[in-house]
């Protein structure tokens, strides 16, 4: 693993050592191992105190009230609870939901499930930058629309959707607005006291916290209600039963506290690396940035190298860990559905690679990976009949292919 360079921070981040230390304190007999729901002894009280401190740390990063934070097992559960929970609770108001084609599967699959239950779902097409605008949304609003679910920052492209503008509109129209912000924490400022967002999903492990823990923000004023998915004790004010995982929660809290304290420093570091990286690889011919440089977070750089296929590129980049499309689907042979939704031709969608940087990426690594990328792209093009044809001036659109 030593020589392997990690360029897949958008998929997951390593736990910050400071976070790991705090988690370790909540496991053993001489540590804070109690059940936070135990009211009858100090082990329980101490665990509860730690959980509530963490709740404050998470609330503080996004400027929410602690009573608006519900612990979950991760952003996938948060998305499920928000979408299914709100749709089922408010089904008497209407049965129409709006989301987009570039959402994470954790949003798309619950929406598919709701369709099976009789809800109608509209999947918006993004613009070519990978962004949903208020105008697109307005065109599909109906009297029956009860819920809009959109991601803040797209996990494949890093594109940023304007949730402030959309939230103002959904609030005026009495529609619940859910935002998946798994990729946002520690990257961009989120001020929920000034945003008209009703539900927001967070993940621990995308922000240097542990996997297996997340949170859902559930607005108190105006109050948003949900039908719970998991029953069994009524923990988390009935929204989510189950014994709280103190060590995980403490880890997420600490990770979010560090994110708040060091966001500026992290962003400065990552922006610098991203600029170096993109400048280096833009020397490659026929390379396309997926997303718009002016409206994306710098930690994600998604590029297509025309005339070579993404999986072979990943295989050739053997000492670099990157993703082709979204990691959740990279076992399949389909090109990225996100890139397809942008209107990219299939061959460019097939050749996309997501490089994502983070707190522990170094300039040396970035320069070395840029060099390797340049080398292997040239090598793969040497093997590519499409590159030959492109160089010979053949219009690939006009070739009669023999699909199999």
């Amino acid at each position: 693993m030593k020589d392997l360079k990690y360029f897949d921070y958008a998929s997951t981040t390593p736990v910050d050592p400071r976070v790991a230390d705090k988690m370790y304190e909540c496991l053993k007999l001489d540590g804070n191992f109690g059940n936070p729901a135990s009211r009858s002894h100090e082990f329980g009280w101490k665990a509860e105190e730690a959980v509530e401190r963490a709740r404050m740390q998470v609330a503080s990063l996004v400027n929410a009230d602690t009573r608006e934070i519900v612990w979950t097992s991760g952003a996938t559960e948060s998305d499920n609870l928000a979408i299914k929970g709100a749709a089922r609770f408010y089904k008497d108001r209407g049965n129409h939901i709006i989301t987009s084609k570039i959402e994470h599967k954790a949003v798309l699959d619950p929406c598919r499930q709701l369709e099976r239950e009789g809800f109608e779902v509209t999947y918006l097409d993004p613009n070519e930058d990978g962004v949903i605008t208020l105008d697109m949304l307005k065109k599909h609003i109906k009297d029956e629309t009860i819920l809009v679910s959109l991601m803040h920052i797209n996990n494949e492209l890093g594109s940023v959707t304007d949730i402030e503008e959309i939230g103002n509109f959904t609030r005026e129209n009495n529609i619940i607005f859910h935002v998946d912000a798994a990729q946002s924490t520690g990257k961009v400022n989120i001020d929920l006291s000034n945003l008209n967002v009703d539900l927001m999903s967070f993940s621990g492990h995308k922000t240097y916290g542990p996997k297996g823990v997340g949170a859902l923000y559930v607005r108190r004023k105006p109050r948003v209600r949900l039908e719970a998915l998991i029953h069994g004790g009524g923990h988390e004010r009935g929204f989510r039963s189950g014994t709280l995982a103190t060590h995980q929660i403490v880890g997420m809290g600490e990770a979010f506290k560090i994110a708040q304290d060091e966001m500026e420093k992290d962003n400065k570091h990552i922006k610098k690396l991203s600029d170096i990286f993109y400048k280096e690889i833009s020397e490659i011919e026929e390379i396309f940035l997926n997303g718009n440089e002016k409206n994306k977070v710098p930690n994600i750089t998604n590029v297509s190298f025309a005339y070579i296929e993404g999986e072979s590129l990943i295989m050739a980049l053997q000492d670099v860990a990157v993703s082709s499309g979204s990691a959740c689907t990279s076992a399949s042979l389909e090109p990225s559905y996100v890139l397809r939704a942008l209107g990219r031709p299939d061959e460019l969608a097939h050749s996309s690679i997501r490089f994502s940087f983070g707190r522990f990426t170094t300039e040396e690594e970035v320069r070395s990976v840029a060099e390797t990328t340049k080398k292997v792209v040239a090598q793969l093009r040497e093997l590519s009949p499409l590159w030959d044809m492109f160089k010979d001036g053949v219009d690939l659109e006009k070739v009669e292919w023999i699909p199999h």
Partner: protein
Amino acid sequence: MAYSRKVIKKFQDTLNNPAAHNVGRLDPNAKNVGTGMVGAPACGDVMRLQIEVDDDNIITDCKFKTYGCGSAIASSLQMIEMLKGKTLEEAKGIKDREIADLLELPPIKIHCSVLAEDSIKRAIADYESKKT
């Protein structure tokens, strides 16, 4: 994608030394050359095989270029190794199953070996069409 060592080795060998592994092209207009190109960019793979055939119907040289995943490139090289020195009749007998078995392709990648078999068939057909 978890590949066998054979796929990874063939892919790396081809990448690092294309000239020694029959990457390239022959003159598609030459009388003794047959070209077969199958696949489509939209599907994520295109394989182009060219064979040079002597008067005794023996394949004396072959070149390929492949756009596709690691196993498509490895399958191309496997196919080349099986083709060299064979007669056209023998070459027609090469089956995708043999290529897949030799490379231990995972089931989801069987289409790569199918692509190789198709490109052989098409290259031979192209050569034979020039003879008539």
